[in-house]
């Protein structure tokens, strides 16, 4: 694998719903160790873009992960290849415990699962699960029912679920919505810990302060089109971004 191929390279992604073009020819790269932000007003097409590259929405364009072409693969195949995502609405399995939620992706069934389930000893995966929960700050709560969590906590479990089973790139759809500002800052640190281990993160969020603090690179979408890509400090002074999204220049910056 050559250096230029490592990470996620989505090229020319276009998503249409009937007559509406929700995403138009968007190309985004996320390299290992990077935290990349994707921001834009409501309905700009951020979620649609993530749906497209994870195989949940029909789309044009190509998706390459660590040199492997994922275009046309099924969602679960992309997931096994290392492209993991979370959902804007959490989408946990609400009748299961946190631990079981995380285990779904840690141990998805394969050809031999039926045999293993019936005849072999169960491996103890508690430590792995606790490890993932620790990363998102939910250690020790493995037995709690996912349905009883707040939306913020549900999304954190979603992140843990995406981490489990191995992920080289994480796509996080508004993971920090539902957290207060202190928790958001904590969350930024946690993301950094994840990328320190070599994974890359694409994060969608409306909290511009958080994005400026946490991200190495930021992409801005408006009406399905990319209108900006660059570092947080470049973005703060970009006239189009200010007009489309920020409204006014960010003072000082949170960093």
């Amino acid at each position, binding site marked *: 694998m050559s250096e230029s191929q490592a990470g996620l390279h989505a090229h020319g992604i276009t998503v249409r719903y009937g007559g509406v073009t929700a995403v138009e020819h968007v190309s985004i790269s996320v390299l290992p160790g990077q935290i990349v932000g994707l921001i834009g007003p409501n309905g700009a097409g951020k979620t649609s873009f993530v749906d497209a590259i*994870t195989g*949940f929405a029909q789309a044009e364009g190509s998706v390459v992960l660590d040199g492997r072409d994922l275009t046309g693969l*099924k*969602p*679960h*195949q992309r*997931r*096994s290849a290392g492209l*993991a*995502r*979370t*959902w804007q609405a959490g*989408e*946990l*399995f*609400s*009748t*299961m*415990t946190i631990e*079981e939620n995380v*285990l*779904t*992706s840690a*141990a*998805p*069934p394969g050809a031999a*699962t*039926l045999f*293993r*389930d*019936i*005849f072999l000893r*169960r491996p103890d995966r508690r430590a792995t699960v606790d490890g993932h929960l620790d990363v998102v700050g939910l250690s020790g709560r493995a*037995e*709690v*029912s996912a*349905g*009883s969590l707040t939306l913020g906590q549900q999304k954190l479990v979603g992140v843990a*679920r*995406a981490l489990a*089973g191995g992920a080289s790139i994480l796509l996080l759809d508004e993971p920090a919505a539902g957290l207060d500002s202190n928790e958001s800052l904590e969350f930024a640190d946690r993301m950094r810990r994840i990328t320190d281990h070599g994974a890359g993160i694409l994060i969608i969020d409306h909290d511009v302060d958080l994005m400026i603090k946490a991200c190495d690179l930021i992409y801005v979408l408006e009406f399905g089109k990319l209108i900006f890509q660059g570092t947080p400090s470049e973005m703060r002074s970009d006239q189009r971004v200010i007009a489309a999204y920020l409204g006014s220049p960010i003072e000082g910056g949170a960093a």
Partner: protein
Amino acid sequence: MSTYLQFAVFGLSLGVLYAALANGLIMVYRATGIINFAMGAMAMWGGYVYAFLRKESVLYLPVGQVYFPDDPGFWLSLILALASSVLVSALVYFLAFRPVRQAPVLAQVVVSIAVMLTLQALALIRFGGDTVRVDRFLAADADAWKIGGVTIEPQTVWFTVIVVVLSALLWAYLRFTRQGMATRAAASNERAAILMGYSPSRLAAIAMILAGLIATVAVLLTAPTTGLNPVSYTLYVVPALAVMLVAKMSSIGVATGFGIALGAFQSILAYLVTQSWWPEWAASGVDQVVPLMIVMIALLAFGNKLPARGSLQTMRLPDVDIPRIRPVSATVVFVVAAALLALSQDEWRFGLTTSLIMTVLALSYVIVTGYLGQISLVQVAFAGTSGFVLSKFGQDVGIPFPIVVVVCALTAVVVGLVVALPALRIRGAQLAIVTLTAALAIERFVFNNYSLTPAEGNNIGAPQLFGLDFGIRQGPDVSRLAFSWMVLVVVAVMVLVFVRVASGDLGRAFLAVRANERAAASAGIDVRMTKMTGFALSAFFAGVAGCLIGYSHGQLSASSFTVFVGLQILAVAYLGGITSWGGAVVAGMLAPLGLVHTVIDHFWTTGNTYALVAGLLLILTAILNPSGIAGATKHQIAFVRAHRGRRQPGAVAETAAEIDANANRERTTSV
């Protein structure tokens, strides 16, 4: 050519029935969102009322009857028949459908199946199982017309005209009246109807009544040609469901045209199968294979465009507690069961043994519906398939006993995989339709096909292992202990397998798919493969049960594997609690020919009391307590524990959360 046309004309009388039933289905669906599996059974009631007024001058009410001095005559009988139809529709709506209008799809399907079973049992009890002749609805005084060699009775034309006109009226009601528009709106959003100034439940009740009326009229028109029979009329809903799917569950015009065409086509087929070139083995039940093919084609053509109401979000099912095996209590249960079998004899031992077998069949529902979340009504046909193969194998090939069961169950798996294919595209109530259609097709085409399953010579030999005879009979003993113990061992193994799978990675993946398919896919679960695996596994369980049923009867009897038996087992599986093996055991006890059945038959002479009681209980369960009997007890236990654990007055607000937390901590459905 004119022969074909002639048969097409003959088929019109069934065709109008299909059209009317399908329109009734559409009406109910658009008003309530419920697929009314009881449509045929409801319509049949008015037909019976009419027939018995004319024959015996008795007005049958659901409970009780009124005697007339002599034949009340055509008009009064007609009015009373239609009035009974209104009564039945209103009762069904207010007692069964309305309470579950916000409930999960599974509860709605179960309730409407329960109504179907209840009405059928009631009809069997009140009117008997024999086909009842019905006098012509319209006098056949005019001469038949002859057009180009085809004889057409004027009344055939009148039938068709009446049903088409009534259908047009239904269409106009939905389309042009303010009330009709509000009905359509209310189905998706009750507040819309309220804003328009209507009460949603009154609108739905009216729609149910109109649906019942048109279907009843069609039954009155058709019954003189076919005779009234509680089984066939209840099941006429199946072709009507196929028609409904073709009409995309909404178009009354398409349903009317297609329903009539289907009747004509089936009639032509009935003629074709009598031809010498038609293969004899494929002659029986073709009329039921046709609806199945129609359903399949309709789904392939516009599977994803069918209204997807309640397909995703509302597929809520009772919670699942991950089962765990506790060696000590498992052994105790096993020994107690073995002792009970040894202590009982004759009918009681047979009932208990049947309950054990039915536990395995119920487990197949627990897997496919409770865990995987797919409503399948075909499981008993898997069992039948396996039993069918066993009856072929048992004699000819001579594969030794435990292996032959596995082989037969594997053939059921193959059938299961084929039937699972539609489940990859559709879910919820639509899958229930497909699987019901498939079950009926398999029943008629295979089990009731005398060239495939001759009435004589389906004997299933006694299972033998290491020279030991595990047959159910020997000399005067018709319920041997050796057989029962063998069954107990097989059932124990199957329960063990279930618990292992349910508590393993596959079980978790099933639950994930059940809860949220796209979240499951995003967790790396191959949803299609997981569904196929679940269907295959459930078919295997059903197949094992089918073999045991075959052994327990000493032959393959089609009557063990009818659609109704399948529905009754779904019913009791739901009653018992569709998400746990404990529920399956309860289901086994409640199942047809099981222990409770034996008790009921012991004290009541009529054989249909069981079906009636089961149907009524099922309606009650689905309404009051969607997690079933086993689930209810579990919750009560959790509740009591929560209260004992921390007896603090004033902590009321915490209780609910506590119960949940407790239920999670306990997570022990120990053996």
